[in-house]
């Protein structure tokens, strides 16, 4: 078989599933192509490092002011909650990654890799088709936060930085995100239409495990970490998230939070090269911060490759299964009784509806989405 072209090899770095089965087999056995791929990966990581200064989020207010009255149509104002989300989605590998979000991502990575029966050296796909609640105690959270950063277990590369922008309406959101935007036909009293739309473009990145880095970090922190299995060292996970569309309702002047938010996003996807998923699961769940109860809950998830775990902080919120849009979802209520939310996955899209509303109101909104 002929060697793989440079263009196709380069694309494999960003999209490991682009290769046909035959070409994939060639890559596994051809030293020439593998060496080329290694050089290209090193080059692209170096370039990403040089060009990946954090993207300044577009400030539509300032942009509008700068454009004055000369240009139309005007972009929709960005709701504060979206600005909050934006601050969180801006991926910057430099500062410490110790937040709950990072824990959640790590949890998604863990379960994503746990594909029963998958052999080493196969591409593994995590594409959730359902959600499940995983209660996390305060102790769990504290001990997880005591773990070294994710960046100390290996190298994080951001291939595509997610970018936030506000758009005028559902049509513009559909065009920009390529998602089929569902709209509610029922809105409870405090949430009035029309909604304000914001989209977050697709983001992707990879994580390459490094045994040496993990060991050095453990020594620096004076902690004992379990040894990294040999074939995990150097293997890479590819994570793709988004695009996502957020629609907020009932946001009036002086109000900090909208009364209703509807979010829809393409399900996250994880792909892997050359790692035994069982070993990966065992390694990650044996980290000192993971309590036996939490590990048991994650292991108990029926089909982890197809299930998106939703961490529920046990002291702040309660959760229970619910049927929404004909599928099983998770209903979350905060312990103050002021707000509720629903999360479900259908046809490759993860949906979340929430607000300062009762569970019944949120459920009615969710079931009215068309």
């Amino acid at each position, binding site marked *: 078989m002929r060697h793989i*072209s*440079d*263009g*196709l*090899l*380069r*694309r494999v770095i*960003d*999209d490991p599933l682009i290769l046909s089965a035959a070409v994939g087999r060639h890559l596994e056995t051809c030293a020439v192509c593998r060496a080329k791929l290694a050089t*290209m990966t090193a*080059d*692209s990581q*170096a*370039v*990403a490092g*040089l*060009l*990946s*200064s954090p*993207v*300044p989020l*577009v400030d539509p207010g*300032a*942009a509008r002011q*700068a*454009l004055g009255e*000369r*240009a139309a*149509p005007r972009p929709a104002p960005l709701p504060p909650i979206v600005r909050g989300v934006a601050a969180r989605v801006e991926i910057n590998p430099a500062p410490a990654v110790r937040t709950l979000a990072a824990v959640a991502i790590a949890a998604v990575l863990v379960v994503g890799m746990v594909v029963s029966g998958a052999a080493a050296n196969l591409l593994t796909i995590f594409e959730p088709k359902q959600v499940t609640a995983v209660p996390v105690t305060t102790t769990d959270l504290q001990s997880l936060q005591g773990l070294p950063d994710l960046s100390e277990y290996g190298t994080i590369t951001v291939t*595509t*930085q*997610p*970018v936030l922008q506000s758009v005028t309406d559902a049509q513009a959101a559909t065009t920009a995100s390529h998602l089929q935007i569902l709209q509610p036909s029922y809105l409870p009293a405090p949430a009035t239409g029309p909604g304000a739309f914001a989209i977050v*473009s*697709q*983001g992707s990145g990879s994580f390459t495990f490094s045994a040496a880095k993990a060991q050095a970090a453990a020594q620096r922190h004076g902690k004992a970490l379990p040894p990294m299995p040999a074939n995990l060292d150097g293997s890479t996970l590819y994570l793709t998230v988004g695009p996502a569309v957020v629609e907020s309702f009932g946001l009036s002047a002086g109000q900090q939070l909208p009364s209703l938010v509807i979010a829809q996003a393409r399900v996250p996807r994880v792909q892997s090269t050359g790692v035994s998923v069982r070993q990966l699961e065992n390694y990650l769940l044996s980290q000192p911060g993971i309590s036996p109860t939490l590990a048991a809950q994650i292991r108990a998830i029926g089909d982890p490759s197809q299930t998106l775990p939703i961490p529920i902080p046990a002291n702040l919120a309660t959760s229970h299964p619910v049927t929404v849009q004909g599928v099983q979802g998770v209903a979350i209520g905060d312990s103050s009784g002021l707000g509720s939310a629903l999360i479900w996955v259908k046809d490759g899209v993860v949906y979340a509806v929430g607000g300062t509303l009762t569970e019944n109101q949120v459920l009615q909104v969710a079931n009215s989405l068309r």
Partner: protein
Amino acid sequence: MTSIAFRVLQDRAEAEDVAQEVFLAYHRRHPADAPYAAAWLHSAAAHTALNTLRGRRRRERREAAEARLQQPNRPDPSRVLEDRERDQAVRAALARLPERAAAVLALRYSGLSYGEVASAMGVGINQIGTLLRRAEAAFRKEVSVP
């Protein structure tokens, strides 16, 4: 568009100026709902930012030469200097690259998909891998040249 221009210029204010300039230029000459709008705007943002960068490089070289004549030994905290030198090396390397190579890097590393980069550059999606590979190799080589 701001994100594409920022990749090249590493300066938010300048990147916003470029985005505004490109947006107004489009607004004056083209219908808002044209099917080619996104590709046109992406491409124009990359090329306008690269032109701005080249103009700025000429100005910076002139100003640096003048500054050396006036203050031969002005001290600078080493960390600031290091960061600035790295940024300058990145921008200088981008400015030395052929226009198409610099544009493909700015477009791809600002977060556009292969399909969007292909539309902006007016080539087939299958050529993007090749263009990107050559641009990355050339860019890395240019950065290593002092």
